[in-house]
């Protein structure tokens, strides 16, 4: 009892020194008393951000879909969005848990006494902000250095795009059904940075379910699609007439590349490079 | 000596754990009206289904001398008409369409009804006083009206042997009397009618009576036979009074 009292007093003194108040994307404020040593991340982009900021060794558990960098694959996998393994997380005794904004376990974990911070980067600005937030949590002094490095990578990719490819109208298909990446989506932002155009205007939102006829009418010069969706794309009714199909300007991304392109995170520069390479190769 | 329309020897009919029928030896005379009576659960409906070939049984039924299994389906359907109890469904069809279904065994599979079919349907519906609502949907008819349409369906088959299970359900006395007149007319024309009846006083008017209890046939013979009356009293209880009224036998629980 006495020990507890002394510990509390010490904590109260130590607290102002390194404690930080973090306001997460849901508006919830969490007090993190010290840089966490045991971190759980339940979103791949947050996992990558933590590692990028040099705290990879402090990760004790990640979600099922986190697969980069390679070393996180050795960590306990804590499930996906719907079936997060709360028990396992509690057993890991993390100092802080990073979750997605749409996660359903945040309340449960907080009720169990854990510190939960909800972040979900969806755009370039988000990535920068989340880098800063996580940097603050981890006590990393210059998270913005990482951001500048990423930005430089993106700009380099943009510079590598030939003049011919600028303004090229691109159609990026994200999922069957068919769903397209709009101008305001993350992929759309990357395309814009690279100087390419998008047949989906901003008012349709980030991932509209688009009428296939619209794509034919818009006649993109380049199509970007994941490997699974690429099958049968050229045989879709009327699509043989599309400029991109006629000229064979279809970039098919492998699943790993698809991951990079879809995750707004520290590998943004790589995403830009993948897209830039596609633009370079197809516009010969 | 009248011919035998149908002869059945059934060792048993078993469903699940229970024997619904056991040791049945039944002869249905041609050109006669046979009534089957018995308390609830005696197996009357099961017997009717079994001899119509609609229920699997351990035994053999012979229709006009031939085993039932040897009859091609449609030929048998022309020879033997069957009408069940409490049939639900067919609510959306018109009464005439329902009666015309009785002519299915007579016409080629996909052929539309012929004039002969229509004539037979009209005759049957006239006999049951249901012609007036032939264009109405079955679902919009009352219980009694519906029953008369279903009766007409069975009659439209014009089969030499007609089996009917509780044909008088929902029918009030005037229509019951009409039904009996109808039966008499067909019997006079040489057909055989078998009806399972709850109404004991009507069953006693039949030419031939079969009494069932607990899945067995207890007694069969003429309704006027004193042995039959004894058997009836044994089955239905001593309070059953069988008396003659205006020359006819009547049964009353008193």
């Amino acid at each position, binding site marked *: 009892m006495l020990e507890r009292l002394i510990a509390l007093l010490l904590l109260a003194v130590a607290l102002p020194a390194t404690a930080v108040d973090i306001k997460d994307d849901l508006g919830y404020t969490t007090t993190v008393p010290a840089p966490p040593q045991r971190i759980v991340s339940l979103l791949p982009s947050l996992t990558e951000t933590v590692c990028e900021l040099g705290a990879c060794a402090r990760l004790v558990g990640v979600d099922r879909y986190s697969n980069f960098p390679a070393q996180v694959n050795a960590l306990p996998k804590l499930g996906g969005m719907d079936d997060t393994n709360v028990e396992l997380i509690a057993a890991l005794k993390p100092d802080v848990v990073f979750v997605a904004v749409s996660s359903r376990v945040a309340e449960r974990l907080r009720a169990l006494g854990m510190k939960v911070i909800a972040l979900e980067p969806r755009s370039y600005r988000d990535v920068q902000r989340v880098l800063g937030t996580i940097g603050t949590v981890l006590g990393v002094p210059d998270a913005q250095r990482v951001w500048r490095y990423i930005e430089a990578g993106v700009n380099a990719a943009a510079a590598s795009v030939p003049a011919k490819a600028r303004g090229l109208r691109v159609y990026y298909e994200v999922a069957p059904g068919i769903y397209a990446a709009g101008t305001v989506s993350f992929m759309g932002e990357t395309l814009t940075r690279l100087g390419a155009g998008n047949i989906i205007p901003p008012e349709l939102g980030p991932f509209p379910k688009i009428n296939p006829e619209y794509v034919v009418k818009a006649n993109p010069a380049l199509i970007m699609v994941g490997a699974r969706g690429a099958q049968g794309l050229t045989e879709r009714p009327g699509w043989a007439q599309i400029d991109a199909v006629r000229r064979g300007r279809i970039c098919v991304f492998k699943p790993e590349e698809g991951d990079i392109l879809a995750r707004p995170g520290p590998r943004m520069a790589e995403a830009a490079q993948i897209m830039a390479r596609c633009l370079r190769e197809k516009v010969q | 000596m009248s011919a035998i329309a149908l002869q059945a020897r059934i060792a048993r009919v078993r469903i699940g754990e229970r024997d619904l029928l056991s040791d049945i030896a039944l002869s249905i005379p041609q050109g006669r009206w046979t009534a089957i009576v018995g308390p609830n659960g005696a197996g009357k409906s099961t017997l009717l289904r079994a001899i119509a070939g609609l229920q699997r049984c351990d035994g053999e039924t012979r229709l006009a001398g031939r085993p039932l299994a040897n009859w091609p389906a449609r030929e*048998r359907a022309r020879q033997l008409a069957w009408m069940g109890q409490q049939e639900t469904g067919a609510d959306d069809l018109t009464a005439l369409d329902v009666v015309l279904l009785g002519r*299915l065994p007579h016409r080629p599979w996909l052929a539309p009804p012929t004039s002969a079919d229509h004539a037979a349907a009209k005759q049957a519906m006239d006999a049951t006083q249901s012609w007036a609502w032939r264009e109405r949907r079955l679902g919009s008819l009352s219980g009694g009206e519906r029953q008369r349409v279903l009766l007409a369906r069975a009659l439209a088959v014009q089969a030499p042997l007609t089996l009917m299970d509780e044909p008088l359900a929902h029918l009030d006395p005037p229509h019951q009397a009409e039904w009996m007149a109808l039966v008499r007319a067909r019997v006079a024309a040489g057909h055989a009618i078998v009806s399972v009846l709850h109404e004991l006083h009507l069953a006693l008017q039949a030419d031939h009576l079969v009494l069932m209890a607990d899945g067995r046939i207890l007694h069969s013979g003429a309704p006027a036979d004193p042995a039959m009356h004894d058997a009836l009293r044994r089955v239905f209880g001593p309070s059953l009074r069988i008396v003659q009224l205006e020359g006819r036998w009547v049964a009353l629980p008193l």
Partner: protein
Amino acid sequence: MNFRPGVLLALLLAVGALAVAAGVLTGSTGLASLRDDGMALILWEIRLPRSLGAWCAGALLGMAGAISQGLFRNPLADPYLLGSASGAQLAVAIALALTGVSAQHSSLLASLGLTGIAFVGTLAGVGLTLVLARGVEQTLRLLLAGVVVGVVLNALTNLATLWAPDILRAMQAFLLGNTGLLGWNSVAVMAACGVMALVVGLLASPALDALTLGEFTAASLGVQLPAVRLLLIFAFALSTGAAVAQTGIVAFVGLVSPHLVRTLCPTLHGWLILLSAAAGGALLLAADVIARTVIRPQELPVGLVTALVGGIYLLILMHRRGAPGK
């Protein structure tokens, strides 16, 4: 309101034709300007086959609904009720997971292959239900068995998507119904299946009529029940499987079309099957046109529209049945 069958058929086909016209004239860009050359491609290669395809899928579902309601003597029967949809869904999920083929494949071979797989899955689902229900005699048992089989097969489908998570999106699109990529190949496959199923259904329709009086009566009228049931289940599975393979799960069309026809025109099953096909085609196509036009150039999943429209229709029906004086 009672129509004669021939008149109602003409009416439904006319509505269908109008809907095809609407389908050709509207789309991602509103009313088409027929002078624009570039539109010719869109009209003939995209909108026409898509509209005809939607009509075919609706006709297949309407037919399957009429057959299943007659066969199982239950006005609530729906092409998806007896494990058919869950069976088709599971088969498609397994095929997608194992072969990596996109659910939106439009080539003839893939269309045929996927249709075949969905058909097999439909048969398997229905067969399982019938085995569980031990025959088609007892309606309640049949419906319960259908629910059980549906739940179990759906669980297996979820398992498949867990094991191969990249088919999740494809399955989602599949589940909500999708007419977006129907081409002439899909139309051909569906039309062929439709004709086959229609012929079988019409051949067996006298048996369905006899069945309305009950199984025993039908047997007493000389109907060969086992053979007829098999034929009808084949027709039912073929139409459902073909529709599901091409457009995914589209709610309510199969349930509502025969109801609509029966309300307007009480008739024997031969006409009922034909009329339900025409009604289903018109319904699904109309829903597709709405789905394409309301938030163009985006589109709603067509299954959503049919669920809304079908649900409202059934609510109105229930309200009228329950109203006093009826």
